[in-house]
């Protein structure tokens, strides 16, 4: 009996690890909203079903013919070895499991579920059935991902109640804070930075508050209202995500925006929307839900937004860089070691107002323009807006400029998509001085990876970047090919980022700008 229990200890630890992983995946997949958790299981069949646990079943078969006194040791050894493999393979997650109240509630249900067989076994314990007991325990461990799924289903009514409780709490708060106005931000991408920039600019005069991090679901909005918003907040800047038809309505039921901003309409979540038209229509729901005294701000450079037929007659204002016929247009955009400077022309106003910002990149100029236009509309003076724009700080590793010795480093290490890389190249090429790019190329793009990197190489040549340092010979081959096909010569290949650093120091000129593009280790901090 004792050795039986001791032999189960490694299995128990294994179970905890697996359940933690299952909870983690459940949480990352929005607690199986739209069956995302099941889809994840389907995608990761190898990890969930065809794993080392299968070895245990062989032992069960073996146990039918071998003496149990020996089997106990065999089981224990097998459990320990598999546990060791699990532990050694464990990777540090980018976004770890958060032990929210919901996860705790799930844990309780799960504990009850697991206790039932344990209770039955130990109540009617019989040494003759040892192998059967092993089989049951092994099965419970093996099926942990499925059992977590079942737990989630069992807890659903409870979660619904909890959700409604928090929702009512949030609704009550919104009702009480009648003077707080809501600004909704949606779009296919760039919502988070847009939201933060708008909030930051409004904060030169008001007490605006954005939904934290990338909270953008009804749950996130409710959470922010209940835990972050205080009675002094006069503007609540809400990021609203729309991954399928109806998402926006779910959010506007909780907070009804008076002002709405659409960043850019792209093809993100095309799969769940069904068509591009559906994406477009859904994003515009936010505009169409505005009250008659509201205001919608659109990007005048986005033809999809400009050509959309809006179903209500709410006031619309536009921002833009290329489009001349907008309410706030940025011209004379100049980049330097101090960041970006530009002039803003407002419709029906001949004066050009000069703004300076530490932010880089075209998308950020759009975001700043939105903040400026909205701020002006809400009664902030131009002088104060200038201060507000100057106060907006870049997000670390996202086109963030920092001085490093005699070099100006533009850190864009968190970017991993082709559009972002192109924008970074544009920024670098506009810098007044020698330009160097350091990149290991883009990864994790699936079948598009080779082509995307090849195009990236061609674009580096097109933007006339002075020097290129490729990190990792093998993985940067497609970029090199793109550069060679454009007859670009100044390519240097190094194996390690440290070598790249020495190299660029030796290449530096009076004023040198180095773009660190794509996933590079944090060596400059």
């Amino acid at each position: 009996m004792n050795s039986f229990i001791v032999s189960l200890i490694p299995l128990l630890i294994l179970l905890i690890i697996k359940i933690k992983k299952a909870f983690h995946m459940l949480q990352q997949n929005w607690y199986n909203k739209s069956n995302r958790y099941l889809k994840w299981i389907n995608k990761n069949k190898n990890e969930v079903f065809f794993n080392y646990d299968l070895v245990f079943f062989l032992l069960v078969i073996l146990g039918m013919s071998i003496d149990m006194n020996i089997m106990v040791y065999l089981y224990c050894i097998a459990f320990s070895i598999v546990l060791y493999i699990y532990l050694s393979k464990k990777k540090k997650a980018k976004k770890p499991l958060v032990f929210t109240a919901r996860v705790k509630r799930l844990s309780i249900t799960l504990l009850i579920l697991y206790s039932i067989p344990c209770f039955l076994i130990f109540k009617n314990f019989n040494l003759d059935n040892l192998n059967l007991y092993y089989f049951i325990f092994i099965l419970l461990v093996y099926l942990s991902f499925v059992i977590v799924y079942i737990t989630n289903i069992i807890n659903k009514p409870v979660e619904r109640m909890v959700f409604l409780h928090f929702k009512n709490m949030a609704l009550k708060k919104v009702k009480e804070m009648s003077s707080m106005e809501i600004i909704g931000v949606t779009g296919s991408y760039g919502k988070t930075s847009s939201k933060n920039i708008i909030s930051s600019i409004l904060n030169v005069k008001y007490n605006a508050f954005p939904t934290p991090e990338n909270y953008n679901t009804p749950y996130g909005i409710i959470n922010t209202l209940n835990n972050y918003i205080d009675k002094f907040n006069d503007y609540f800047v809400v990021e609203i995500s729309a991954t399928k038809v109806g998402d926006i309505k779910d959010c506007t039921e909780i907070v009804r925006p008076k002002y709405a901003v659409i960043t850019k309409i792209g093809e993100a979540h095309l799969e769940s929307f069904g068509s591009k038209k559906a994406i477009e229509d859904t994003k515009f729901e936010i505009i169409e839900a505005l009250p008659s005294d509201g205001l919608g701000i659109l990007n005048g450079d986005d033809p999809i937004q400009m050509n959309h037929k809006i179903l209500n007659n709410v006031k619309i204002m536009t921002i833009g860089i290329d489009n001349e016929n907008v309410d706030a247009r940025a011209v004379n955009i100049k980049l330097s070691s101090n960041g970006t400077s530009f002039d803003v022309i407002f419709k029906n106003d001949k004066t050009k107002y000069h703004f300076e910002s530490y932010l880089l990149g075209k998308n950020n100029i759009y975001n700043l323009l939105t903040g400026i236009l909205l701020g002006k509309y809400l009664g902030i003076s131009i002088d104060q807006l200038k201060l507000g724009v100057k106060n907006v700080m870049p997000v670390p590793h996202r086109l963030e400029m920092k001085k490093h010795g005699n070099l100006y480093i533009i850190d864009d290490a968190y970017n991993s998509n082709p559009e972002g890389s192109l924008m970074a190249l544009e920024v670098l090429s506009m810098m007044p001085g020698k330009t160097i790019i350091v990149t290991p190329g883009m990864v994790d793009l699936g079948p598009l990876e080779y082509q995307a990197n090849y195009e990236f190489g061609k674009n580096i040549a097109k933007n006339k970047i002075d020097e290129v340092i490729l990190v990792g010979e093998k993985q940067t081959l497609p970029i090199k090919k793109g550069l060679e096909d454009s007859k670009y010569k100044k390519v240097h290949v190094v194996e390690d980022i440290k070598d790249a650093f020495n190299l660029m120091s030796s290449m530096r000129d009076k004023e040198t700008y180095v773009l660190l593009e794509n996933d590079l280790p944090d060596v400059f901090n």
Partner: protein
Amino acid sequence: MIKLGVIFGGETVEHEVSIISAVQAMENVDEDKYEVVPIYITKDRVWYTGNMLKDISIYKDMSLLKRYAKEVVLYKKNGEFVLQSTKGFKKIVNTIDVVLPVVHGQNVEDGTLAGYFESIGIPYAGPSVLGASIGQDKVTMKEVMSVNGIPTIPYTWFYDIEYNTNKDSILKDIKKLGYPVIVKPARLGSSIGVTVSKNEKDVEEAIATAISYDNKIIVEKVILDSMEINCSVLGNYEYTEASAIEQVSSKTDFLTYQEKYLGGGKGKLKTPSKGMASASRIIPAPIGDKLTKEVQELSKKVFKVLNLSGVCRVDFLLNPKTKDIYVIEPNTIPGSLSFYLWTETGKDYKTLLDEMVTLAIRNKKVMDKKTHSFESNILSNFDGVKGCKGKLK
């Protein structure tokens, strides 16, 4: 709804002025956004609250006021700022979220009240402890302004005790300034105890008057052929804006207390609700765009170097011929909160008050982000306490 505590009164010579300013302000608060909670400090420093305090007529009869208004203390309890009755069952009478101090003069406007708000951590509109206390002392304020290159009127100062023991040398210093001079108590406002002296004979009497109000006396040179102009500034250390400029005209040599607040009638509150707005004035002051701009910039500078916040009014003397400008003094919480200057700038009183409260909250939020104390208790590892029953070794 945000609960806005409007606090006023206090043991100060400007007690009544403060009541007038506060009642005026309470009448103009945006009632859709704020719920006004009046907090009145009597001359004997007792705090009262109650809705009847919004009405000016209650102040005619103090015994009535003391009977019906609730005597309270303000402190922090369970994360809220509560007004608790000091009598009977000591009930919590009301709570407030943010304070708008409309107080004038010593014991309140000089940073003492701001200090109390800082200590309990409630956001408040108006100057910080430092700004308010510098602004209350006409000598220190001049010293700070001079260092920052702001033109001030030539002056000399002394304590009453020095005057009693060393009169001759002080009179000599005053003579050096050149008559006529203005004698002022250094830490009073609203022209109280202020006298102009044309010669040495008058000055002794003027000093005697000033000494009856304060133990620190300042004597300033009179700037001849000058006019008094005022400009209000709104903002905080990050951003400031200046209002329209007024020219204050005066029948006598300078604006007396009666002229400023009482509208001429001897001691009676003839036009109480007008307060400071009733002094004879020209807005905007006819001094031309260039000078206007210059005065506005100077006002903002004064606001910044004196660490002010909220709304203030800077008083100047301007010689229209030579275009010489002198800063007389800033009023860190000006009478009537200078709303009449802002109306002229396109900001109605309601908006002005709203912006002041918003600034108060922003200031608090900015400060809260900076580290003020450590989460852990440093004394928790203090060995002396262990095993000695609470006594320090």
